[in-house]
């Protein structure tokens, strides 16, 4: 049974550079170096504002994956990237990912508050702990710290950053002496229009969820099914309540990979064409990383062997995301596909994040169903290709949601924190 919720959903766009599909760069709508073109980035911001969207997100990590066939591994530094976009926009929120492992909390606190000040209070920090040896080697470390250590550090890192943001308002020095950091000093940056940046958290591990419950105001989740999403929604909101916070103080926005068309057939054709134009080795490489097993060694026409789906043998050294892995394993167990079938299915159902292929009307139905079902506060939509996919969201999906009373017609609030607070309250759970 579903209770109707009042108020509106939150809509964010996860800007995976040119789009989540590797072949996004091949369209004649883009130049070969659009991923570093200021006009490309500011046009994304302006298009998002035309649809009164809540926020644009950027993933990040201090390392380079092979960009041979794909613009996705290319990373302009997010506070600079969104700082430039902020100057071309006035209302859309801007979420920048930054690592708590490969930064100094004093520098990050000063930079993020400065950037928040410059955006007029539209900034958020998405806290990640960063995986992967290549990142470690850019910082003189042979390998990344174990997961537990990364999260203990992240937790203290966030505390130092928040205390420093507070010092900007009070002018009182922070005196922090912890396990990882010793900081005596304060920021001299003016508080922003929203006081300080919003904090996001994106990991699905138990440690990540606990951190989210304590400090995050937004969670970028990775749930594949509605039931999983409801469970996660209640779990994280419950963590917030356990920490003496209101469940409304933390908004849950799962990612949703999208291919949209004016008919379902057209959407599938678009998705197929974009997939076929990309390298086939990608899906196998992606699956290997996500499940912690070399998928090129699997028989393509056999189901997944049990030892691949069982518990991780060594979670501490697993380089993938535990939340993604759980979602994928649950999905495979549900239908027991062959490896080839699974790789083909993920074209339509997503890879790690849930996927959606269909019409804007069908997407509105999906959003409405999950919203009223108490599974989400909103979605972080991830178009296959942004240069033409974002406009479909803004000009076709958003008007449908508005007609259904699920989305605002004009911006009614100015800062990102105000956008969040104006969204629908948490249903009883």
């Amino acid at each position, binding site marked *: 049974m579903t209770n109707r919720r009042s108020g509106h959903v939150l809509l964010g766009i996860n800007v995976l550079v040119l789009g989540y599909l590797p072949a996004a*760069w*091949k369209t004649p709508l883009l*130049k*070969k*170096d659009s991923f*570093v*073109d*200021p006009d490309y*980035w500011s046009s994304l911001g302006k298009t998002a504002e035309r649809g009164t969207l809540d926020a644009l997100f950027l993933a990040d990590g*201090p390392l*380079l994956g*092979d*960009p*041979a*066939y*794909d*613009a996705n591994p*290319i*990373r*302009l*530094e997010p*506070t*600079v*990237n*969104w*700082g*430039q*976009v*902020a*100057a071309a926009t006035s209302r859309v929120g801007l979420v920048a990912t930054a690592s708590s492992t*490969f*930064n*100094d909390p*004093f*520098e990050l606190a*000063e*930079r993020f508050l*400065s*950037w928040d*000040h*410059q955006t007029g209070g539209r900034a958020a920090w998405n806290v990640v702990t960063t995986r992967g040896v290549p990142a470690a*080697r*850019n*910082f*003189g*470390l042979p390998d990344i710290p174990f997961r537990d250590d990364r999260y203990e*550090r992240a937790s203290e890192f966030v505390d130092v950053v928040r205390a420093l943001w507070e010092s900007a308002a009070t002018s009182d020095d922070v005196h922090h002496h912890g396990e*990882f*950091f010793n*900081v*005596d*000093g304060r920021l*001299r*940056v*003016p508080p922003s229009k929203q006081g300080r940046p919003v904090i996001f958290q994106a990991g699905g591990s138990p440690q990540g969820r606990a951190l989210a419950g304590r400090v995050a105001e937004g969670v970028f989740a990775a749930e594949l099914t509605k039931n999983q999403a409801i469970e996660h929604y209640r779990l994280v909101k419950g963590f917030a309540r356990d920490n003496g916070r209101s469940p409304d103080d933390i908004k849950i926005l799962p990612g949703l990979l999208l291919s949209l068309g004016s008919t379902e057939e057209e959407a599938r054709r678009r998705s197929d064409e974009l997939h*076929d*134009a*990309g*390298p*086939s080795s990608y899906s196998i490489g992606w699956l290997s990383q996500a499940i912690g097993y070399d998928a090129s060694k699997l028989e393509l026409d056999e189901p997944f062997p049990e030892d691949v789906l069982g518990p991780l043998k060594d979670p501490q050294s697993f380089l993938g995301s535990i939340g993604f892995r759980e979602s994928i394993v649950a999905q495979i167990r549900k239908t027991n596909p062959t490896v080839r079938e699974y790789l083909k299915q993920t074209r339509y159902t997503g890879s790690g994040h849930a996927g959606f292929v269909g019409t804007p009307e069908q997407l509105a139905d999906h959003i409405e169903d999950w919203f009223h079902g108490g599974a989400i506060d909103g979605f972080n939509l991830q178009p296959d290709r942004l240069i033409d996919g974002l406009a479909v969201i803004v000009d076709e999906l958003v008007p449908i949601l508005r007609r259904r009373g699920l989305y605002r017609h004009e911006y009614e609030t100015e800062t990102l924190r105000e956008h969040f607070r104006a969204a629908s309250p948490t249903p009883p759970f």
Partner: protein
Amino acid sequence: MTTPYLALGLAGPHLVELTGNRALLSRWDALPVAFTVLGIDRVDGSAPAAVTLTSSAVGATLAGSTKYGRFLITTTPQRDHPYNIARRVASLAHLSGGRSGVLIGVRDAYAPEGPKEAPAWGGAGLGGGAPLNAQTAYDAARAVRALEQSWPHDSIVGDRDTGILVQSNRIVHVDIDNSFSIAGPLNAPEPATGASVIAWYAATAADTPPVSGDDPIELVLGAAGSVPVVELGKEPPAGGIEGIVLRAGVEQSVADLLDTAERWLADGFAPIEPGGSLRAALNLSAPAPLPSPARAAFPAPKPHVSL
């Protein structure tokens, strides 16, 4: 003898003032000065002012809200790592059309020092770090330059027939091992306008940069450099200089600074046409490429074949 150019130096409070005022921004953008140092007080030995902003955040605003003005962001390795610095430097160059560069300082007036045994970058708590001295800052500058060059811009081919976006086998590791150990490569390509201009601040001869074979410093500001800094209200030094940085004190306003700059430009300083890259405006040649052979970061991409 060539006529010296004029550049501007802004302290913390001016960064807040300039970026919060559209009229000032337009006036700044139209001024034919060589460049503006964003937050010179962070690195020139000044006491911290009441307010400031991180220089790269101001640079990002200028990249998006102005078209012509050139600028140097200021940074130090005191609480920051060269990989992170290089990312912001390269990103600003892309997004400003090459109007940006970086002034790397030894100490950060607005930040506490890290732990005694490693006051530069040691505060990050990762077990690394270095002394807070000119050698560390210089090593950071070398790393920023190498990282910006680790991914050649012309490797971006966007060949729709072969499916190859980037000839990624031309991207190299930097394998730096000095005050910092950095494998690289950087995760953004070299700016289309080339690697960013790297400047240094030297009030006295003791502050001049160390020298190495691959010297990344192209511009030395301050009394011991080729571009002295003159406080607003004082007269410019006579002759024999490349340019000057006219620097406002914290009690003076951006409007005061722009008034004087306009007067001096009308009275003997060489105007430098607004717009275009900082490197071109300063007539600096492209830096030497990374020494080869360097370790390739990725295998040569093969043309993509559909299944």
